[in-house]
């Protein structure tokens, strides 16, 4: 068994573009790292920045938020709000000492199966480089 560190990455994908893009990558039988735990949300604008903090607390080594390209949002403007929000969140996380590679954002449309593969590769690589996240991980509670 390999002892290499395999990061745990949580991905919030928007229902209309990124999730369909990941689906396309799958149905096209593209190979990409399997470190991703996908959570489907209706829009990238629906992702509360606290989800990201919470994911890091509960065991994620990296987080990805992915949505439609700007201008292509199913809800017209959701990803524009998400962009502002997560630009600031990323700065804040970096400022308290979270390695910059841990939080990522991407635009992947429903037809970009190949791009999805690259994004996942990149995100996994960055999380692997940053190593296991333990700065503010929640202590395990044994009930």
């Amino acid at each position, binding site marked *: 068994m390999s002892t290499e560190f395999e990061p745990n990455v949580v991905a919030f994908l928007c229902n209309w573009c990124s999730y369909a893009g990941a689906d396309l990558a799958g149905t096209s039988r593209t190979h990409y790292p399997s470190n991703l735990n996908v959570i489907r949300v209706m829009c990238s604008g629906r992702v509360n920045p606290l989800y990201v903090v919470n994911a890091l607390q509960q065991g994620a080594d990296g987080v990805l938020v992915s949505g439609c390209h*700007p201008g292509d949002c199913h809800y017209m403007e959701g990803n*524009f709000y998400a962009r502002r929000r997560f630009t600031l969140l990323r700065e*804040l996380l970096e400022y308290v000492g979270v390695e910059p590679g841990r939080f990522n954002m991407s635009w992947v449309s429903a037809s970009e199966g190949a791009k999805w593969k690259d994004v996942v590769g990149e995100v996994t690589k960055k999380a692997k480089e940053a190593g296991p996240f333990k700065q*503010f991980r929640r202590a395990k509670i044994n009930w």
Partner: protein
Amino acid sequence: MVNVDKLKEIARETISRDDVKYLIGWRQGTYGFRAAPYFMSTPEEAEELIFSPLCTNNLATYLTLAEKLPVPRGQEPDSRKVALLVKGCDSRAVVQQLVEQGISRERVLVIGCPCRGVIDQKKVEAKFPDVREAVSAVWDGDTVVFNLPGGSVAVPRQEVLAGKCLTCRYPNPVIADVTVWEEVAVWGSDDYVDVRELEAGSPQQRWGFWEEKFASCMRCYSCRNVCPMCYCEDCVLDRLNPQWIMRSVNTAENTAFHLARAFHLAGRCIECGECERVCPVDIPLMKLNRKLTKEVRDKYAYEPGVDPEAKPLQASYRPDDKEDFIL
């Protein structure tokens, strides 16, 4: 120049008006170098009003803290105004609350007091330890004069002013129905030196710095309670379902709490420094808030609490916002 008699006169006039419910100002505290918030509803009470370097409290907090009782059927809601004394920084809080529609303009009467900087309790108490009596203070040129029991002492402003006042860019109220005396000249400029210092370190160094600070937090939530911008009726910190931030006091949950608190102020913090002032364990919260203020200024050329007609930063967007980190 600061003229407290004129302030009292204006307060008396204001409170005599039929459409004013009460006036929020400052009065001398019971001990030491403190001023206390003062709620007055009769003209006679104006005698106790003060405006001095001790008036650190940001009274804009009380606009949204007022209890909203249900109106009995058949009665009209009390639509009288609340009059409020503001310094420059406090007025920005009022503006930001107006921008977010937390308060309505018709319900507040802003009395502007151009300010020459307020003291930092901790700095003054270090200089004059063990003062039990109530001490008043006045501005005098480039000094602050404390009327101590043993006689008056003048101290250079630089030595006793709060950190936020040394870099203050808005000593004059940005919104006011009445300005009590003439505006003062702006003395400060802000390059975010403290933020840049910390940014220069490695992620490990930064985490080392914050871990120590966050670990000492005891989650009293004073910073949230005193903040004029924290007025959600249903605060995420109090919610149990879903509970995003656990109540246990440990480094992990404290960090999540401080990230959430700072992030909820992104593009809203008006840098009045109240959170840092009330913190019982001296966490440099402004260093966290100011990071986001700096990013907001650099990335979006946005400054909260300056323009009452502006839109809230996170409820607006520009199609060409920067996105250099997005894959």
